[in-house]
């Protein structure tokens, strides 16, 4: 998985800024995508390209249980969010519908990765390559259940 980075140096990016409440009435995912990150970055929709990664600080996705948040990011083209940590409902929602990969990274990777860097993510090796800076970082392995849901391609494909 290769893509370039949109970085928000910010903790506690909540689901209300990822997808503001008024848009929860939209059922067309492509339309939802137009409002992704609108509460934080009005230009996100213009900036994001298919395959991009978001890099952010601690507690990404805190707040509401709206699955619309990972859906909006996913349909914008975001393949993974790399954050210092995730709020748990978002974390699970992200993989349930195979919308995007929630990847936990450590402080050194977080500080090293810059906006616009090209990354290559290999979850089979728990490895992130920074192609721009020619560096390699470790990602935290997924907890077992999350890993299995990802492997299966979503909750409904997962057979315990």
């Amino acid at each position, binding site marked *: 998985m290769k893509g370039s980075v949109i970085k928000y140096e*910010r903790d506690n990016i909540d689901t209300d800024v990822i997808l503001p409440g008024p848009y929860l009435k939209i059922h067309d995912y492509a339309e939802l995508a137009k409002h992704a990150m609108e509460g934080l970055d009005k230009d996100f929709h213009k900036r994001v390209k298919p395959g991009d990664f978001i890099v952010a600080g601690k507690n990404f996705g805190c707040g509401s249980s709206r699955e619309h948040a990972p859906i909006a990011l996913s349909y914008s083209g975001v393949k993974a969010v790399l954050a210092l940590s995730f709020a748990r409902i978002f974390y699970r929602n992200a993989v349930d519908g195979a919308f995007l990969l929630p990847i936990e990274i450590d402080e050194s990777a977080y500080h090293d990765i810059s906006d616009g860097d090209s990354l290559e993510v290999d979850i089979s090796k728990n490895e992130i390559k920074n192609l721009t800076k020619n560096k390699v970082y470790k990602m935290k392995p997924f907890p077992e259940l999350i890993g299995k849901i990802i492997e299966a391609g979503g909750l409904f494909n997962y057979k315990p």
Partner: protein
Amino acid sequence: MSKTLFEKIWDSHIVVNEDGRSLLYVDRHLIHEVTSPQAFEGLRLNARKVRRPDLTFATMDHNVPTSDRTLPILDQTSSVQIKALERNCKEFGITLFDIHSPNQGIVHVIGPELGITLPGTTIVCGDSHTSTHGAFGSLAFGIGTSDVEHVLATQCIMMEKPKTFEIKIQGKRKNPHAVTAKDIILSIIRKIGTAGGTGTVIEYRGDTISELTMEQRMTICNMSIEAGARAGLIAPDEKTYQYLKGRKYTPNNYDELVNDWRDNLKTDSGAKFDKSFTLSAENIAPQVSWGTNPAMTDDVTGSVPFPDEYGKGNPEEVKGATKALQYMDLKPGTPIIDIVIDRVFIGSCTNARLEDLIEASKVVKGKKVASKVRAMVVPGSQLVKKNAEEMGLDKIFKDAGFEWRESGCSMCLGMNPDILAAGERCASTSNRNFEGRQGSGGRTHLVSPVMAAAAAINGHFVDVRELDLN
């Protein structure tokens, strides 16, 4: 082996267990109009039925208008979602408390009020504030729409076992009418942080918790998610059993169940928690949030912090506070009581039950809302509204200049017409002060119902301990 209350409920609901991954049985599934349409669509696409429509209850709360309900809904997209829920409930045989039902209300207010919420049960709902039901010793998780679909189809949820977190609150509050359950939970979040409870189920314990009424306990458990926890729990006691007696859906063999709960639903002495935190209630002051997450809160006697001081040398925290103050348009050093407000919202699943309205009405009675302030009360449910009206509370609020609305989530999350305009500042009894939560560009200060009421009358925050609230 000694077990915590959480472990007892968890273990008794395991259908399949595999290396810490568990398929849990769900006793009650609550649904609403916003996070359920895609789930029903998924069932239809796969020709699946709802496994236990008798254990599934629905209401419409998130986007319903709080104005006159005899009029049509003007917002077409809201209307579509509301009609979809009606159609889905009819097709799949699910009990629905619709917009005209005397039992309609915020899903977390009506669950307990109707006796759907019971001790020792598992409850899920496509809403993060499902943690509210933990006040009854029910293990209650907020879930996303895929999980809603999974539960509709199977009545089970697949989860990894959360860790346990004991939060002990001890001692007597000096003025329990002014220092409320809201102030206790905001104090806790302020101390442990918005991710302090991540991956855990919190059990709130200690004599301060035992003294709280059921409605106050709900306020505490409601905001567990604001500390990042998967759920919040309080062991049931005689107050719990009394509260649920004789409600619409309370089971017929209730007394028998209570006997069993009395024996079993508590953390055994000697049981170990993964994590512990203790707080003394004696010195808790009324709280007011100043920033853009619930941990950014201070005593009403305090001031808007300087980001450097707030961050205590952590550059990320300093940056976070700086951005928050920019958004909130607040200057460091400003006394909290000097913050002037434009709007007041008394409502939400955190603080819109009868006691909340009674307490707020004491502040309002015989007074007038400050001239530049627009204030509204949105009761948590139609039943809360009816009971409040029977007590004459509606008259007290309306005479003072408050708007008295129909029940729903309303201005807590800005999905219906009740929103802040950009730049407006609101004293709100809700649970989230995130950027844009109550309307794009709106500024939220989280407070208790008495603080919100006092802010409405005075036009700014006041130390409510100085008021006569008895």
